[in-house]
């Protein structure tokens, strides 16, 4: 298959985006995602944004928030558990990011929305929150090469 340079780049960025969609609940870092896309860590963030219009960190935030919206809507799990389930390391970061992306708190969202019954890929695609507010402060983002793109921190004591 002959792909143009841009199409090949798109395809590799899609693999990295799929990796975030698939492993959103795990700690993800730029070197890993860059390796999936066969790019250097220093290139990855810039190229991802060129293809999809947002940073990998912001995409992962929206993916996690979309999953949190589903769990809040479809289950009665405590908000703290939902935050952890979708990859956030703290309730505070989750609540702040959720409110930033969705425009209301997780609890308010749960109170307003009923469950839906369609394949999860449609729920994921159609409930993914659009960019509507400035991203969380840069200090909370970690997209530089060699740093985590995920809010969830590795447990240094884990075996």
């Amino acid at each position, binding site marked *: *298959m002959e792909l143009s340079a841009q199409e090949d780049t798109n*395809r590799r960025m*899609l693999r990295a985006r799929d990796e975030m969609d*698939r492993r959103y609940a795990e700690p993800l870092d730029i070197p890993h995602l860059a390796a999936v896309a066969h790019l250097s860590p220093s290139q990855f963030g810039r190229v991802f944004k060129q293809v999809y219009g947002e940073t990998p960190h912001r995409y992962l935030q929206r993916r996690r928030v979309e999953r949190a919206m589903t769990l809040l809507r479809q289950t*009665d799990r405590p908000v703290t558990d939902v935050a952890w389930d979708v990859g956030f390391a703290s309730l505070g970061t989750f609540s702040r990011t959720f409110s930033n992306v969705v425009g209301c708190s997780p609890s308010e969202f749960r109170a307003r929305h009923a*469950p839906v019954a369609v*394949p999860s*890929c449609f729920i994921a695609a159609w409930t993914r929150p659009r960019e509507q507010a400035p991203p969380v402060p840069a200090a909370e983002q970690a997209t530089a090469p060699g740093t985590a793109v995920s809010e969830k921190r590795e447990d240094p004591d884990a075996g």
Partner: protein
Amino acid sequence: MTNDSHITGIHIRAVPVLDQDEALDFYTTLLGFEVRDDIDLGFMRWLTVGVPGQDTSLLLELVGGPQHDEATAAQVRELVTKGALGGVFLVSSDVRATYAALVDAGVEITQELVEQPYGTDFGLRDPFGNHIRISQPNGASSDEVQDAYDAAAAGG
């Protein structure tokens, strides 16, 4: 309401592909489709495949025909490779076996097997970026699926 349209089924659904030989190999060798038509019309290769025993076919349509100018064709190719176009939804009689076989074959899995109120399914991509979802329904009706979601929401 009567069916005044007289439409009786979905016959062919076009899937944009960037290489018809590669598409043919993916959909037949990996997904088990059969070739319905492979006809050189001169102006295009009419290539359709389908699931054995089922009527609907997929037209593996090469992006870049004369209906699009070069700039538009490039845009469509961009959208395909970005994963931004639609998808194909398939049904399996043993979705776990299908999943295992496709994982072994190195297919790009976008979502691992997941239990849903309506059955079990997973997602993947074809070589070009098109989204495919394969499901094994559990026979639940729409009302039963809705009830399952409602019960989960209510903590039942």
